[in-house]
């Protein structure tokens, strides 16, 4: 019996540690994602600043070219008009690039909003569920430890000794002190009355559901 319960206790501890590591990694993933989306948004903001400067310079060049063309003598007018056209093209391109960068910034802002919303909801769920899972598993761990350490009454241990793994786990989910009390008060049959796994499993099936609910309610409180 002891080896089986110890194996169950190891499984419970492994699951408890796994849930903890899972929560830690998911938090790290969320933190990394927040850094990435912030970096992408910053890159878009920097690009928008550069494009605004380029547009400003292109607009100033265009105004200078237009002023030069307006006061130009006849023999230079065609040449300066070509310069105005080139400056106009340059300014148009700078405006187009700025619009594109602004669009990229807006798309990144939308992506960021969606991602952060999902991360927030997932982190809240993971925090709540992993904490409750860790608590339930800690409780199971403690109960298995009580069984293996021999603090459970000999009658109960004898019942466990006659039962299979399923029944041992059913007992492990329950409040062991309550079970031991019930045995001492004659509310549960002792090993003299229970001789098979089937009997014990039938006996515990109804109570297990109730105790699981109690455990869940306790952890919610």
């Amino acid at each position, binding site marked *: 019996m002891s080896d089986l319960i110890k194996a169950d206790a190891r499984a419970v501890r492994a699951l408890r540690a796994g849930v903890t590591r899972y929560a830690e990694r998911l938090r790290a993933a969320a933190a990394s994602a927040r850094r990435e989306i912030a970096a992408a948004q910053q890159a878009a903001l920097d690009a928008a600043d550069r494009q605004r400067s380029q547009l400003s310079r292109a607009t100033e060049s265009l105004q200078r070219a237009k002023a030069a063309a307006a006061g130009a003598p006849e023999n230079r007018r065609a040449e300066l008009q070509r310069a105005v056209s080139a400056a106009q093209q340059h300014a148009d391109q700078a405006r187009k690039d700025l619009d594109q*960068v602004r669009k990229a910034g807006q*798309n*990144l802002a939308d992506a960021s909003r969606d991602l952060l919303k999902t991360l927030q909801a997932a982190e809240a769920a*993971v925090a709540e*569920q992993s904490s409750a899972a860790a608590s339930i598993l800690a409780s199971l761990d403690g109960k298995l430890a009580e069984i293996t350490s021999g603090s459970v009454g000999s009658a109960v241990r004898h019942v466990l000794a006659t039962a299979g793994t399923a029944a041992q786990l059913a007992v492990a989910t329950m409040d062991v002190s309550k079970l031991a009390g019930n045995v001492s008060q004659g509310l549960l049959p002792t090993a003299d009355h229970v001789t098979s796994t089937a009997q014990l499993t039938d006996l515990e099936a109804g109570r297990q559901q109730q105790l699981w609910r109690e455990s869940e309610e306790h952890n919610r409180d």
Partner: protein
Amino acid sequence: MRFQESLQLAQEAQAELERARSGSEGWSDDLRQRFDAARFRPLVEAGASVVQALKKAQEQCAAAERLLPR
């Protein structure tokens, strides 16, 4: 490509959870089903939603950054 690290971490977290759950194989079906329904499934779903959101963000960021000048 952005979100490589976070995607890897989220996928590792999911794998970690599956590995941990495999340790409960010896549990009674009833106990495991109760634990799964009450605690395990919401954790898996939360992790899956993060992975999905990261993949979507990866695509959205790549598309947006293609619009930025080189």
